[in-house]
């Protein structure tokens, strides 16, 4: 007699799916996105300025094989200019995120660990910072620091720490009650020692995810502030500058000036987001079902 095969499989697999498991797929997604972004960043970093220099004889060329993103009103190649711009934005985003997350880590840990007045002070600072719209605060700080790359970078850096601070603080509050932390205290270790040896290493996964997710925010805010004219000066290749210049030529039908740089920015931001979300699932699998 033929016995029917059991229809129930222990490994759920949808129709037509590949043999890769979720973890591998996440790793691949993260790697692809990271490679693309890193490629853009490094290419832009080492780009020869003459590739996006002024060439008045080739103004307003629509996208073609010679200039795949077209050229602008000063005949600059929009592909290389956008690339350099995105690279610049990423650099500013990177620096801003690093500063921002360092502040968040320090504040978050200190707040939870010391409690009392320190905690109140940090929470007050967080509330103050979150009470104002981000963009307004970024503009204020940027202008107060004299604008330019430093202004925007610090503007973004000093406004993006509150969310991460809260997350880090919540995490540390949990850890503080853990047995091994209490044990460490009982053995006479100082708070600083406990923080460095027991708490921070456990916060790192959350911190890294937070850092990566800060990135798209930082880049978008840099672009927005520059777009509004409070950020990078107009001679710097930056996505914000490119888009605000493009606005002036939209009415005359120069669509390529806005479309391609805009797409480039959106793709970069979405990819950062993908990396962040996937990293979250990889580093913190328990939260994957949230």
């Amino acid at each position, binding site marked *: 007699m033929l016995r029917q095969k059991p229809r129930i499989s222990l490994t759920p697999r949808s129709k037509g799916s590949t043999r890769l498991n979720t973890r591998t797929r996440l790793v691949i997604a993260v790697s692809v996105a990271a490679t693309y972004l890193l490629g853009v960043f490094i290419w832009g970093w080492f780009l020869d300025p003459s590739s996006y220099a002024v060439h*008045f004889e080739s103004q307003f060329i629509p996208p073609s094989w010679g200039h795949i993103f077209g050229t602008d*009103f000063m005949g600059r190649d929009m592909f290389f200019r956008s690339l350099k711009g995105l690279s610049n934005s990423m650099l500013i985003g990177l620096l801003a995120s690093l500063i921002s997350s360092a502040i968040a880590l320090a504040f978050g840990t200190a707040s939870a660990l010391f409690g009392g007045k320190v905690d109140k002070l940090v929470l007050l600072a967080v509330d103050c910072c979150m009470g104002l719209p981000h963009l307004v605060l970024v503009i204020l700080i940027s202008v107060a620091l004299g*604008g330019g790359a430093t202004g925007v970078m610090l503007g973004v850096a000093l406004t993006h720490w509150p969310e991460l601070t809260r997350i880090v603080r919540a995490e540390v509050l949990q850890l503080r009650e853990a047995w091994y932390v209490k044990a460490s205290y009982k053995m006479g270790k100082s708070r600083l020692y406990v923080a460095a040896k027991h708490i921070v290493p456990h916060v790192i996964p959350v911190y890294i995810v937070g850092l990566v997710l800060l990135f798209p925010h930082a880049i978008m805010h840099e672009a927005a502030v520059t777009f509004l*004219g409070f950020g990078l*000066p107009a*001679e710097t290749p930056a996505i914000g500058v490119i888009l605000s210049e493009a606005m*002036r030529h*939209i*009415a*005359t039908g120069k669509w390529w000036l806005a479309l391609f740089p805009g797409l480039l920015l959106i793709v970069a931001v979405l990819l950062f987001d993908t990396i962040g979300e996937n990293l979250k699932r990889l580093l913190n699998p328990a939260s994957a079902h949230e």
Partner: protein
Amino acid sequence: MKRALCLFLLAVFALALLLGCGGDSENAATDSSANSVIAYVGSNIFDSSLDPIKGSMPYGYSFVTNALLRVTPEGSYVGDLAYSWTVSDDALTYTFDLLPDIMFSDGSNFTAHDVVFTYQTVIEHQAENEEVDLSRLAYVTALSDQVVEFVLSEPYSPFLDVTAMQGIVSADAYDSEAFDRYPIGTGPWVIAQYDPNQQIIVHRNHHYFGDAPHLDQVTLVAMDDTTALAAARSGQLDVVKVNPAYSFEDVAGMTMVPLQTMDVRLLSLPVLPLQEKEGMTVGNDVTADPAVRKALSIGIDRQTIIDNALNGIGHPAAGFSAKLPWADYIPVDDNRKDEAKEILAAAGWIENDDGIREKDGLLCSFDVYASEDRFALVAALAEDAAHLGIKIVPHSSNWGEIAEKMHTASIIWGWGQQSPTVLYSLFSGEAALTPGGWDNAPTYINPAVDAKINAALDARSQEEANKNWIAAQELAGKDFPYLYLVNIEHTYFVRDGLDISPATQVPHPHGHGVPVISNMKDWKRN
């Protein structure tokens, strides 16, 4: 299925709505056949008061008010409210004979007392008016209803320019608050409706003493440049101020008209080496070398720069416009690259491997700061100067930053006005090293030039004044403290069938937009 039907109906409805909108704008276009005009002349006119006592229309267009004199398209002065004037031998007393039987737009009579009232009110409220300087006016008095006399405390030849710029308002009707929007004057137009930041509607003034305007009504609308271009395309506007960058856009039913200006774009080149002077940091080691300044002036190709940055609109300039009686007009003879290179080489500037000149380890490179709208001009200049081995680094900047850098870097300026006092601002050593303000950015101090400027200010006649102004420019020109680039033109789209009378347009002063209304009474539909 129901859902699909709903979506379809919605789409049809939306389409109908869109088509409906399109139809409206078509109507607006045909509506312009009436004897009225809708114009976009920039939004600056909405930013400040319309009251001449507070400095409205400081360049003397006869719009709502008239001044005692007016400027002709050729750049000389003729009577407007006054028909003749005399200046005493000591150049302290100016007497104006006023035209009789002139009425304000409210029907009241214009007399010498209105002139006295206007000038006295300006003096009393000088803080509210930065456009006109009456500090040397001792007093003004009406000798009769038709004669007004100004007495100065010291000779000041540009006072005549003041009388051609300052609009006269009605003394009886004057109300400081109301006049911000509804001034009453003797001009060809009267404000019929003022909607802040939306529109100003003017009607023909039936009491105007000159030839009546051809048009019945003009509406000046507030927009931004790109919206205005779109509105022009859809046929809603008759006159549109347009940036030279868009001036060759195709707009159906409209023609681009370039109008001459007295506005020049020039770079200040600091003449002193970098140093501390009277508590200020001034100078630039590269531009301090006269060879660099001279080589730039004769070596660059202004026409190519204009073609590249301004769509070819504007005229190469090596000085102020020949239309100004006090200008030392110099015909442009540039693009002498070989000669310029020889001057640089003789001064010790030798090209390095990158094609940039060097002298004792100092790179022949300097920064130029430009407001955003002038950045392209500097970028085009930088491209051309590179052929000489001079590296110009253009920066798009704001006026705050420019104020910080103006004495140590090169700045691109725009100067254009009827009054020669601009020469004092540009060249006077007395104006150098005064913190605040925009005067004498290159810190150019030359006692011989100062003597000529002072002689011009103290001159007993316009001829004598102009002779000294020209001499001052000639002297200063030898040192090249400024690099003149272009005498710009103001561009407008004008609807076919509307004549804005380019022949009676005065050369426009600084500020693209409003000056086009200077001869609005001569506009007519064909």
